């Protein structure tokens, strides 16, 4: 059967053709106008989840880049503070070197000590630097000044660290996290613990075992009682208990014939034999008080004087009896630290200053230097005191080196952050290319497509108008 074509059919089909052509034209117009191939999930369901993923990663990468640059700002400002601190430390060092010049007077020492104190304060305020509201050197405790100068119970000034050893970790790339700070505790730290040294006043030496005190301390050796070996008629003087300084066993050489007496082979002192509280002096300040009235006549020989006593490292709060062995353990009742002392060669009572090797951080070194300079002139041996200050200067230099290490670590952190940032930026550029490839329209292709659709629409209109003009009516 021949397919009948009715007017309705031709109208409807024309309408469909025109509608279809116009709809295609409209779609391609939209495509060109928007520039985006995907404006809703059904435009390309296979690409949509990839596209969402790309876009999210784009957001992530931007965040990484910002994190890295913020981290870098933090690190750089920490580095700037350290740079300044390093300059300050050099100036302080020069001042101290001047202060150690042997020709200076007591008041000059004082002036230098005051200058050192100023440097100390400046250094503390640098260690308390802030970026915005955050303290840079406090670890993760960024809300309080990390360093504070306090006077402890024994009257010693110390710089206390209130920060922690936490690192602030920032995401700066996919599965890439960097630390963006170095806690002050690692920069202004003390070095590896070394041997404990003593100023040598009493004759104590470092014992076995590791001490756990920090910085400098004072070990007080006090005299308790003196005992004399018998046979000579020699007795203790009236003020022996209170004023003797000998500790351990000492030899007294007596020549009653010549009327001389000497301690530990030291210079001979003369006596008459009637003294009841004779002061026998050793070469290093050892003192024994003797009653010579009972001395056997014509005695020529040796008497052993043994001084017993106690040790304290907490300013005399607690005392440990001296055992004259290789290891006496003295505990600081204030902070619980233990000092291992070799007391086998202890000679006299007195105060030894103890320095825990390697444990002086740069602040304690400055404090020790300042106090050393201030007190040098009140000690019996100014030269020795200044030498001790010089040894603190070594610790000070070591502290400076550690600070410089921190500075270089910050520098490398900064450059790592910078390279992470640029790597992330590179990634982002590539990702954006991918996004564009996925969702953007190829404009030239889309325009050509639109022109084709336009032509098709025009043809549809033309054909429709032509066909609809035809009717049998025109010919009847």
């Amino acid at each position, binding site marked *: 059967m021949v397919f009948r074509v009715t*007017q*309705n059919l031709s109208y409807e089909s024309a309408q469909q053709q025109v509608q279809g052509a116009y709809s295609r034209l409209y779609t391609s117009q939209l495509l060109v106008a928007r520039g985006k191939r995907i404006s*809703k999930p059904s435009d390309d369901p296979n690409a949509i989840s990839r596209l969402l993923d790309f876009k999210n990663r784009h957001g992530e990468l931007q965040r990484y880049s910002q994190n890295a640059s913020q981290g870098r700002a933090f690190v750089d400002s920490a580095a700037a503070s350290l740079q300044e601190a390093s300059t300050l430390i050099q100036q302080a060092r020069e001042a101290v070197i001047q202060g150690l010049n042997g020709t200076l007077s007591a008041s000059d020492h004082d002036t230098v000590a005051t200058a050192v104190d100023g440097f100390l304060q400046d250094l503390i305020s640098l260690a308390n630097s802030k970026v915005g509201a955050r303290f840079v050197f406090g670890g993760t405790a960024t809300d309080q000044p990390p360093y504070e100068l306090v006077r402890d119970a024994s009257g010693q000034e110390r710089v206390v660290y209130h920060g922690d050893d936490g690192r602030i970790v920032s995401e700066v790339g996919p599965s890439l996290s960097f630390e963006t700070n170095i806690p002050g505790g690692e920069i202004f730290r003390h070095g590896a613990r070394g041997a404990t040294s003593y100023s040598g006043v009493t004759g104590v030496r470092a014992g076995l075992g590791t001490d756990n005190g920090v910085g400098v301390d004072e070990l007080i050796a006090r005299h308790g009682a003196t005992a004399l070996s018998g046979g000579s008629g020699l007795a203790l003087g009236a003020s022996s208990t209170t004023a003797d300084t000998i500790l351990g066993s000492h030899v007294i050489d007596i020549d009653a014939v010549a009327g001389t007496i000497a301690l530990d082979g030291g210079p001979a002192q003369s006596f008459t034999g009637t003294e009841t509280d004779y002061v026998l002096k050793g070469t290093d300040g050892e003192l024994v008080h003797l009653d010579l009235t009972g001395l056997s006549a014509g005695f020529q020989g040796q008497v052993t004087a043994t001084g017993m006593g106690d040790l304290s490292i907490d300013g005399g709060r607690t005392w440990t009896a001296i055992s004259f062995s290789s290891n006496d353990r003295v505990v600081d009742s204030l902070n619980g630290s233990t000092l291992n002392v070799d007391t086998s060669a202890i000679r006299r009572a007195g105060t030894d200053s103890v320095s825990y090797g390697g444990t002086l951080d740069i602040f304690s070194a400055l404090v020790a230097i300042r106090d050393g300079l201030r007190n040098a002139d009140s000690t019996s041996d100014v030269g020795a005191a200044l030498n001790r200050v010089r040894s603190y200067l070594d610790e000070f230099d070591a502290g400076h080196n550690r600070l410089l290490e921190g500075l270089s670590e910050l520098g490398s952190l900064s450059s790592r952050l910078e390279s992470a940032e640029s790597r992330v930026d590179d990634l982002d550029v590539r990702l954006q290319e991918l996004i564009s490839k996925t969702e953007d329209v190829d404009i030239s292709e889309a325009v050509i497509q639109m022109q084709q659709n336009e032509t098709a629409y025009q043809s549809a209109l033309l054909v429709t108008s032509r066909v609809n003009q035809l009717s049998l009516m025109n010919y009847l």
Partner: protein
Amino acid sequence: MFGFDTGLSALSAARLAIETVGNNLANATTPGYSRNRVLTATGTPTLVGRFYQGGGVRVAAVDRVTDDLLVTRVREQSQEVERRNVILDTLLGVEAAFGEPSTSGLSAQLGSMFDSLSSLATAPEDISLRKGVVLNAAATAEQFRRIRSDVGDTLGGVRSLIKDTTADINRITESIAAINTELAKTQGFQGGTPNALLDRQGQLLDELAQYVDISVTDAGAGRVNVQIGGQMVVNYNASREVSAQTGEDGEVDILLEGSDYPLDIRSGKLKGFLELSETGVGERVRDLDALANALILNVNRVHSTGVPAGGGFEVLRSHYPVQDQDGDGSLGDELIGSAGLPFEIQDGRLWVSIVDEASGAVSQTRIDIDPQAQTVADLVQSLNAVSGLNASLDATGRLSLAADPGSRFHFGGILTSDLAGNGSLGSSQASLATAAGGPFNLSAGASFDISVDGGANQTITFSAAQFADISSATAEEVAAAINGSLVGAQAEVVGDRLVIRSASSGATSGLSITDGSGSPAAALGLATGPAAGQDNPVAVTISGEYSGDMDERVFFQPVGDGTIGLTPGLQIQAVNAQGKVLAVLDVGPGYSPGDPLEVVDGIKVAFGAGAVSASTNEYAFLDAFADGDDSDVLAAFGINSFFVGTSAEDIEVADDLRADSSMLAGALGPAASDNRNVVRLLALRDAGLGELGDLSAQEYYSGIVADVGQTTSRAQLNYETEVLLRDSFENRLESVRGVSVDEELAALQRHEQAYQAAARYISAINEVTQVLFNL
């Protein structure tokens, strides 16, 4: 005058034909009109003489030209198009609700939320960054609710459309039944076909077919019976109504009047609506709810064990109320595992930390959680028992927690401040221990001699009766067996291992074992000594916050004998329960007793001065817990939660956080820049969530969007295909039944000429007759 009769019949036939053409032309554009055609036949011939003479023409019928098969196919195809159209319209609505891809859609918003967390990690104490996280999370929650509400509205719309559709179906079936009645009447009076009624009937059937798949059976006299899903809805003159019912599960059923059994609808608009309500839209709603639910649970799990700014909470209130499940009017007696809380509680433990504000000291209490045995009141009691914490359950079923003045509480940062147990490491008593936990293979009658404090040997003999299975003796059984006869010393099980300690302490205390028959000491791995105590025990101090992923029991055991800080080469090993060495700590010269040493994952240990011994198997151990709450009890109650709600419909950032962003628990410890919990939260960005089939939230959401796109694009394609098919059937039908104006004009010419010819014929007859009359 048969000549006139013939002419007259031709005239009237031609007139009728012309009128039919007129009617056809008049209805040329009437939708559904089938052109009419006059069918003529020769009239009955009459015998004239010996010949039959033709009886003229008679109109046999005015026929509707149509193709019933095509009509049916068009009808079926229209149903399909309608169904596809409904699906497409709705899915386009759903797609628009998701509004992806865009810079403000849920995908971008989820990304922003995690980005703001990433930003917060760089400066956790920054209040504006904290605010940023809360605002971004709130925007995420809002997007969830908006999409859920838009899609939900669409679902509601579909459901109300179902109701409207059933009303339409009822209207149509009623009309068809009415036409049936009319047809019965017309049929009774005359033989002619009531084409107008049949056209109307066809239109109604077409309309009905768009709504639902129908099967039509001829009921005689042009009447039809209609079935939907195998059930008669039009039966001659009667129709039965259908109605929609939404079940509790959200599924919609179509019920026939007087029946409880749902109709099986297979196609048509109604099927489209039903399908949408069940899968197309309903599934998206379920997916979104599942995503929101998983996000809430997982974020809250991490957040609830974090520490807020300021190092702890003063007051917290749970978000999800406990429900009175057994209806006895009391809330406290509900088991926490079935108290109507939205998330499941597991067997596990909860660590409560109380922080002293002045000293910063932290004390931790462990609460064991058993959801099947513990009631809400038990939990409140356990919390209350924590010193410094007050817990109560209010009348609405919410749990309130408050710290004593001067202290704060939190559930995070497992600070292992105390040893779980010091078996014997550097203790003041003499001790001998086993190197590992049981079970031990002992033999009956085995014995060893033990001397306490240098005293006489005591013989310990093991008998089978002391053990459930002597070849697999537990440490507890061995300890009991030893304690049964040992004087002056005590056997204990500490951290699974067996340790024998002298009752006396100090340098004079001592223990020594001589293994006897059956070598039980060797079987136990028990050190034989001799062991001595010491005057000053080694102080072991644990500090730090464990940051590992798994719970770990760490044993500290010396390698070699010696004195801490003194003996060259002295080391203490940290070993986990599986025997893996986690760290080797140098505690010889150079170690200052009391200095904390890094063990693993944030745990630090310090050893005081004193002697330790490997030859007596000295050890201490600690338990480190990876999660402050592995029971999810906090998330289930909504204590210190980040999000509240249970689905996409009601997800929201917790009020506490919105009011005060310092409540954001981004830390695990008290330090201001502690970002460890932020980092844990951040890890959720890419973490596969078990609730989502190990997909990350972002991946799951992308999946939903891809599904939406896939479904919509398929629906679009289906719709277009079905429209093409329908158009092609319609065109063919139109080709058969449509009015061609040209054709009609030609017919008009033809019939006009026939009329003229008939008139001429009559006039010829007339002339012939006239001639006759004039004869």
